């Protein structure tokens, strides 16, 4: 059937090409309009219970789109006019940033942070310096004293050494545009940064703003990678077709995939560029295989008109490579589909994009490349005289063959076995979530991460997680037992080093109580009865503005938050925190506590999903791969055989990730899943060719040698060219891209090496029937 299809394509090559071009043209109009952006909600697994809690309470208890500014005095404490002026100006400047939630601005120059004072009229509260700046040194001293007295401000918003203050602002998620917020925030910072202060800023809008900021650079890197790729292909293949056709295949695939993505309403996340590169690499590899095989056919066919040669050669190429090509594509698509089981929208959308993209390779590389090759006029002409084939490639492939032919093949298998064991042990340490402090997307010495470090050194931590208490009945929160449980939860959680602090209604009431008791430190505690606490809340509220308590509890006093501040987002930090909350819930079953919202709550949910899907996705991807090989080659051994290079490539990469402290997070998961499908492509081409040659009557060694010199050449060339161009990513300003570049390079290297050395050695040692079938051979 495959043969008939190949013949059909070649017979109607003009209409086939016309249709492909027409579709490409149409899809191109959509592809150019695709949205390139990051949508944070897409990262959230909507069905996860944490996310449900987060969505329900994010508007009041704090969402994920928070920007945290730190103003640090360059000399002395912040209580001096030049510094206070900048704090005031920055707070005022926030109102000019689009999409901010002005009820969620916390600054000592704002109106939400207040001083609570007792007087003859009861409790009163005053903003520290809102709306106006203090006028005299005495005023400044008074503000300083008031801040020192408030545990809600001194510590969380003013550093313990008084040299820095935090200003945080929340955004309305639905209105937020990361780029705009990033630009406006930095514009504000640059305007106010002077000799008196240093300003640092972090937060999701800033982080994703940085990613977008580097988008032009990313595009530049893509172009440079493309250029290197082009040059190397031209150098090695020595023909224009050998250079342009793979690029064309990659381009057609990209246009189709992006066009379809736009049509079904999927945006393009800049962090996904790496995945796009990976798939394009597949398209190119398949195309190079086609061209290599075409050249070989041309060389073997003699005595015909040139035109006819090209046509026949292209037809044979298409017919012979259709099976390994399609199988490779099908496994790629199948393996990546597994990722869609994950309830994370970003991954689901990415799967759609990736599957479409991979599927288009079937058209762009497998069909279009040979069809175009059939028109080649002078198939034996070369564009330049430098013959790398003769100088490097053939000697190298000869070496591959001689390794298989000699006892060295056992050494290859032994090395592979050692790699299996060593990498297998190392791979177990792979972390889920971020493996190092700071954002793994950016370099540690990048501005964002140095700012993040500065803030986390001075303050309890910039990233928040809230848990919700109550959710059962009105006024539940005033209950002394509930309030005490909140406080005990906070104490329990703060024991963990990475949790710099926590805050809840239970922190406010002791200070109100202490104020009522003439500031006696021994009364810095909750009211002893529920009525007592209701009074304390009432007193505080009477002194405050409506909404001041909203970040701690709702109006019905049914729900309250305990917000924890995290100094880092590392996987193990978050896992430990979540496990400790669960431990506390178990020990306190009488108070209802729900996990978890805020940035850390969302990351916790994502990590849990990734962790529980980690084995699932790898096992299922392998299952799909094995089943496909079993079905196509009608041999259960085939399934096992092709698992070898895949498992090896994955183990090596996982070991590398764990060694380099790269965590398995939402950004790395798709790359890992794609890698499974990717690892097998090269082996498929080589083994399929061995089978073909053996079936046609060659001996074992002859078949292997022929396969290595043809399919092996394709593998070597593509792997070399792709690795060379992937190296460009090492210079990316986005650490994530550099690391993924490294990973992909490693993947390609391991896959290529195992296809060139290990698979032929294994084939020769084991002589599996699905490759060396004497019945088929006899028949032919």
């Amino acid at each position, binding site marked *: 059937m495959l043969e008939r299809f190949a013949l059909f394509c070649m017979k109607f090559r003009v209409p086939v090409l016309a249709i492909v071009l027409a579709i490409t043209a149409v899809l191109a109009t959509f592809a150019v309009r695709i949205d390139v952006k990051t949508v944070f909600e897409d990262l959230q697994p909507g069905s996860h219970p944490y996310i449900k809690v987060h969505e329900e309470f994010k508007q009041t208890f704090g969402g994920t789109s928070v920007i945290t500014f730190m103003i640090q005095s360059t000399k002395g404490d912040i209580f001096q006019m030049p510094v206070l002026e900048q704090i005031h100006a920055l707070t005022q400047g926030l109102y000019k940033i689009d999409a901010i939630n002005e009820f969620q601005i916390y600054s000592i120059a704002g109106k939400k942070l207040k001083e609570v004072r007792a007087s003859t009229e009861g409790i009163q509260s005053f903003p520290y310096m809102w709306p106006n700046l203090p006028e005299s040194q005495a005023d400044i001293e008074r503000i300083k004293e008031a801040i020192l007295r408030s545990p809600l401000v001194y510590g969380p918003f003013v550093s*313990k050494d008084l040299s820095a203050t935090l200003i945080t602002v929340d955004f309305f998620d639905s209105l937020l545009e990361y780029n705009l917020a990033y630009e406006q925030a930095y514009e504000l910072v640059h305007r106010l940064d002077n000799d008196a202060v240093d300003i640092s800023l972090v937060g999701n809008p800033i982080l994703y703003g940085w990613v977008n900021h580097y988008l032009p650079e990313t595009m530049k890197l893509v172009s440079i990678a493309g250029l290197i790729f082009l040059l190397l292909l031209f150098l090695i293949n020595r023909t224009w077709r050998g250079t342009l056709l793979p690029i064309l295949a990659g381009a057609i695939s990209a246009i189709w995939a992006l066009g379809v993505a736009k049509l079904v309403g999927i945006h393009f996340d800049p962090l996904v560029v790496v995945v796009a590169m990976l798939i394009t690499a597949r398209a190119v590899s398949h195309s190079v295989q086609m061209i290599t095989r075409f050249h070989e056919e041309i060389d073997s066919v003699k005595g015909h008109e040139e035109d006819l040669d090209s046509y026949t050669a292209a037809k044979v190429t298409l017919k012979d490579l259709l099976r390994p090509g399609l199988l490779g594509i099908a496994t790629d698509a199948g393996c990546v589909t597994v990722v869609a089981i994950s309830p994370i929208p970003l991954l689901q959308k990415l799967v759609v994009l990736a599957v479409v993209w991979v599927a288009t390779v079937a058209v762009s590389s497998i069909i279009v490349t040979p069809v175009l090759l059939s028109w080649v006029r002078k198939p034996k002409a070369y564009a330049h005289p430098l013959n790398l084939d003769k100088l490097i490639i053939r000697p190298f492939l000869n070496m591959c063959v001689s390794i298989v032919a000699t006892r060295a093949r056992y050494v290859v298998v032994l090395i592979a076995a050692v790699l299996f064991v060593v990498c297998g042990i190392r791979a177990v340490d792979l972390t889920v979530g971020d493996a190092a402090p700071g954002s793994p997307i950016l370099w540690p010495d990048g501005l964002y991460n140095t700012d993040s470090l500065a803030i986390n050194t001075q303050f309890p931590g910039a990233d928040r997680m809230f848990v919700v208490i109550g959710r059962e009945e009105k006024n539940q929160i005033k209950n002394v037992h509930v309030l005490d449980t909140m406080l005990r939860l906070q104490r329990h959680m703060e024991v963990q080093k990475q949790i710099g602090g926590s805050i809840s209604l239970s922190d406010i009431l002791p200070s109100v109580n202490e104020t009522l008791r003439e500031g006696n430190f021994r009364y810095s505690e909750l009211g002893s009865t529920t009525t007592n606490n209701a009074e304390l809340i009432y007193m505080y509220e009477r002194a405050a503005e409506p909404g001041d308590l909203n970040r701690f509890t709702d109006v019905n006093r049914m729900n309250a938050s305990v917000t924890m501040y995290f100094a880092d987002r590392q996987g193990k930090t978050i896992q430990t925190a979540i496990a400790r909350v669960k431990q506390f819930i178990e020990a306190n079953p009488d108070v209802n506590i729900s996990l978890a919202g805020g940035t850390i709550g969302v990351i916790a949910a994502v990590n849990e999903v990734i*962790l529980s899907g980690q084995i699932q996705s790898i096992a299922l991807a392998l299952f799909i791969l094995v089943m496909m090989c079993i079905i196509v080659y009608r041999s259960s051994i085939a399934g096992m055989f092709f698992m070898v290079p895949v498992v090896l490539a994955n183990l090596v990469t996982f070991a590398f990730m764990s060694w380099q402290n790269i965590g398995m997070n939402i950004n790395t998961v798709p790359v890992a899943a794609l890698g499974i499908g990717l690892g097998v492509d090269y082996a498929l081409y080589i083994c399929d060719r061995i089978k073909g040659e053996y079936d046609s009557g060659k001996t074992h060694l002859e078949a292997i040698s022929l396969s290595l010199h043809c399919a092996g050449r394709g593998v070597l060339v593509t792997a070399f060219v792709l690795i060379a161009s992937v190296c460009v990513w090492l210079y990316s300003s986005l650490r994530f891209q550099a690391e993924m570049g490294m990973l992909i390079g490693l993947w390609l290297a391991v896959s290529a090496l195992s296809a060139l050395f290990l698979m032929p050695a294994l084939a020769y040692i084991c002589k599996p029937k699905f490759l060396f079938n004497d019945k088929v051979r006899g028949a032919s």
Partner: protein
Amino acid sequence: MNVAGQNLADDNASDTEEQSAFKKILLTLVSILPWAIVATLLWAGIFVKPKAVIEEVIPDSINVRDNIFGVAHVGGDVYLATGNYGKMLITQDGGKTWVNQDATVDVHLQDVSSWDEDRAVAVGNAGVTLMTEDGGETWVSVESPKSDVANKLLKVHTYPGGEAYAVGEMGMIIRSMDYGKTWQQLREENDIFMNDVVKVDANTIWVSAEYGQIFKSIDNGETWEEIFTDSPNSFAAIAAKSPQEIVIVGLAGVVVGTSDGGETWTYVSPEQSGMTEHMMDVQWSDAIDRWVAIGNKGKYMTFTKELTDFEPMNISTTDYTSHSEMEIVGDKALAVGATVGSLDLKTKVWTLYHE
């Protein structure tokens, strides 16, 4: 040769048979293996859920959120301290490292005092009174008189012979004469906070209270005299250098003192002393020959026994936290509160031990 050849052939045949049997088993195995792997993969894909890696968290003896309210010098470098949520601590190295003891209660413990290295008492919220007879290995909660209204006990002090006094809310003054096993109420309850107590001789007991009030008993607690000082503020602590020389400190930095056993009291206003923060504890230091008072927001001050030469200071430029008690031994004051640290009274250097 033929025979031999025959034999050889036979051997070969049996070898081949063995080989083929072995081969068969091997082949069966090899053909089962892939399906076993496929089944394992499917099973792993559907059922295996990896467990999260959780780091072990070992709590410090004193955490950032802990408030330590009371401290007592036991002897040498050994001190006891009490704090919130039933925190009971012991140090063997002058406060650098502390070990938690099991207080068996989880209310805030306000104060602790010891007779010797084995016997001590502690008091706290809800009128809790605890005693130990084995250096804190086991703490026992004992009965003590209680009010129906409020029962927080704020201070406890021990005196030789198993005598101990504790004071607290609702005018509570209680005494134990048997190392803290039983307690008697010395005064009718009324709505006033008793903040500290000191016994200066065999029969004289002084209690500092709210709104500048003090209480005096000259008959070992049988009857009490109410005295109003000039202080408009509440008191927090009282200490005696001798039965004649007594000093009281309190909120907003007030100081009241006598050098004639309470015949006359001198009031030193915050304006005079320069200290406006609450002073929560006071003690005499022989090492610097001055009174030392410590309190809120990292403030402390020293002054002479004549109540002159007031020197208000910060314990450090970075620690602005409140301290509720101290124990002066030699030239060092071990202070507790929101932080725990040691203040060198001569060099005025604050060493922070626990945040």
